[in-house]
């Protein structure tokens, strides 16, 4: 069984994950080099210039050139990190969305303390929702009068996606700010009430992972754990069709002869 999590970065199953991980490594190597170099200088100076009999401090030293070159170098490197790494990656993640016809569309409605996952069903159209229709059994408030809503599928804390297919997730919140984070996908997006925020990602490995809430949302913040399953297209389709749709197919008609009719008086009103 492959180890997903440990002391440090979790496994990466995201198509844009390697670039993020590369940036994290590059920055940390840079940080380590800077710190080791600078710290070595510090220790040397502390030893070389410790107070001792006969040793006197030097009032005026010549200007050091190295630190200036170092500072300029740091500034240039930061500029490189920005322009060469962060800007293009953020642009890709935030702006370059996959083709809607290819991607799996899903809505995730966060609440205290669960992730409601809403799939549009076979017709590919999300049914209308209304906050006044929210009940424990209908956590996203689907409107049964909208025919598009009938085949929609809503799960609680179960996000299944097919592997190697882009997914566009539209995030919204019912109550407070949450944050939709999937560590193995290297994605995180704050979910702001009053907004619908799209996020896209594509998984390249199957497995069972988790969604974590990454913004304090109340007493249950610590247990706002969603289950994120990446599976093959076949497994995904199998799972999908096994989920109960919002409105079940109509029941067979009831035999009217056995239904008692209301008493005479009441019918007159």
């Amino acid at each position, binding site marked *: 069984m492959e180890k997903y999590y*440990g002391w440090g970065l979790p496994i990466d199953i995201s198509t844009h994950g390697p670039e993020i991980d590369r*940036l994290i490594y590059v920055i940390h190597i840079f*940080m380590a080099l800077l710190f080791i170099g*600078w710290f070595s200088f510090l220790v040397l100076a502390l030893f070389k210039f*410790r107070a001792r009999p006969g040793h006197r401090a030097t009032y005026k030293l010549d200007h050091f050139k190295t630190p200036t070159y170092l500072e300029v170098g740091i500034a240039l490197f930061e500029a490189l990190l920005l322009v060469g790494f962060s800007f293009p990656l953020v642009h890709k993640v935030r702006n370059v969305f996959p083709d809607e016809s290819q991607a799996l569309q899903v809505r995730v409605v966060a609440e*205290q303390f669960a992730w409601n996952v809403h799939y549009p069903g076979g017709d590919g159209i999300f049914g209308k929702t209304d906050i006044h229709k929210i009940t424990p059994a209908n956590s996203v408030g689907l409107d049964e009068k909208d025919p598009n809503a009938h085949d929609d599928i809503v799960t609680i804390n179960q996000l299944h996606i097919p592997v190697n297919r882009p997914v566009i997730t539209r995030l919204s919140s019912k109550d407070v700010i949450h*944050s939709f984070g999937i560590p193995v996908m290297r994605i*995180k997006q704050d979910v702001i009430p009053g907004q619908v925020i799209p996020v896209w990602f594509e998984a390249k490995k199957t497995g069972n992972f988790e969604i974590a809430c990454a913004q304090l*949302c109340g007493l249950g913040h610590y247990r706002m754990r969603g289950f994120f399953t990446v599976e093959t297209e076949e497994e995904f389709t199998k799972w999908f069709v096994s989920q109960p749709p919002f409105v079940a197919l109509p029941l067979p008609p009831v035999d009217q002869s056995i239904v008692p009719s209301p008493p005479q008086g009441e019918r007159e009103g």
Partner: protein
Amino acid sequence: MTHTDEHPLPFWRKYVFSTDHKVIGIQYAVTGLSFLLFGFGLMMLMRWQLAYPGQPLPFIGHLFHEKAMVMGIMLPEFYNQLGAMHGTIMVFLGVVPLAVGGFGNYLVPLQIGAPDMAFPKLNMMSYWVYFLGGVTMFASFFLPEGAAQSGWTSYSPLANIATTGQTVWLVGMIFLITSSLLGSVNFIVTIVQLRADGLSFFRFPFFVWAQFVTSFLLLLAFPPLEAAGVLQLMDRLAHTSFFMPSGLVVAGKVLEVSGGGNPLLWQHLFWFLAHPEVYVLILPAMGIVTEILACNTRKPIYGYKAMVYSVIFIGFMSFIVWAHHMFLTSMGTKMSAFFQITTMIISIPSVVILTALALSLWGGSIRFNTPTLFAIAFLPMFGIGGLTGLPLGLVASDIHLHDTYYVIGHFHYVVAPGTIFALFAGIYHWFPKVTGRKMSEFLGKLHFWPSLIFTNGVFMPMFLLGLAGVSRRLYDPIQYAHAQPTQPLNVFISICAWCLGLSQIPFILNFFGSLLWGKKVDKNPWEATTLEWAAPSPPPHGNFEHLPEVYRGPYEYSVPGQRHDFWPQHMKEEN
């Protein structure tokens, strides 16, 4: 010989409602240190729950009210209260009052050769308003549903629908902000107007520059938070919807508010203050470290002018980086590019200051007394804190690291082994000036070494936790599968935290013991050059018999051709 007042003041007016900046400085320092200890205690409680989630707290667990702990087992509401109040208390009631209200108030008039602050009565008022704010915050723990529990950041809508503790938090914040504003006006006017003759701006000790820029940050950055606090109070009490969008459903019920508000409005107003606030936390510390290093290396600070320009530049820049705390709030790429750029730029002057301080050691004659040990330790610790800000300041890496323990590690390195070490250094360094006695070197080193080791033990593993993706503010860290492998680190961190607490005992003993039995010293035991050392230890009311005149810069140590290796600023002839 000191001049005595014609009409001696009664005890009440001399030591309690005093307008003397030194008394007020001590009041701020003692109150600040007490809140630091209290805030630290809150964290030690949290660390139990983090290391051993769901286990009853031994020995003292049963002392807590059942709304906080049931049979010694911490409840999520109490954990969240501890978290929110630990942050609030450490920042607003602990570090800033000690660094600015304590050190700043006491030392700035002395270092500029003034008899007091420009507005002594305003100074007194700012302390008592701070005290009132502190009492308010402390009292909030005793509300029926406890203190604020929405983080020190109090994001709406969570803070809007939170318990009464949040309202009391807002009232407390308004007191604290008011105190801060009164204080900052005082500092600016005092520094500009009351400096001694001959004390030009570029002859200021760097500590004065640091306090000067800090005061501008406090003056200009706090009001938007005050505005935000008023708006959140209006939301909570008058049921407005500044931060509440329409269509909210809380616990299954549609929320009856007018709607149309924006949660991000709170974040913008909050962070507009809170980013400059972190520079308020660090600049006085840099000032203290500079003073101590100059004195204990026996040579002028390297790159003093560069440091001054850098600190002014930091002041300006700190107002235009705030949204790097909001990178994941769906801001557009143009806005995030702007804030990434300004965030990268602001790292440069910090690097300049740190480098100048490190280079100041070169060519010196370094005395390793307790203040110097803490001041030197500040440098690499602040370095780690600053460096770890880099992956957070770039959006692409921040996506993974935002709101994880990486952030907690980053800012604690800057504030805890950073600022707080500098504050300790300052206490050891200026204790002789304030009390006329020196603190014990032995106890000082016994305080320093374990503190250094354990503080690294607490915060270094947090970077690993953060890289693993473990979120902040989790009452129970092992509910998530990705957080379970790092749980041994949590245990290690907690043990180090408790040991860090124990390591403060030598300091507390030293502090009080030295008041009674410390070695008596005269006015300049460290042989320093700045003006506060020209006054008696402790200085009398009015500080100087004659207002000093200044003839040179603040760090004329080891001037060639002189008998002594220090040349005080106020001394006309050679030393």
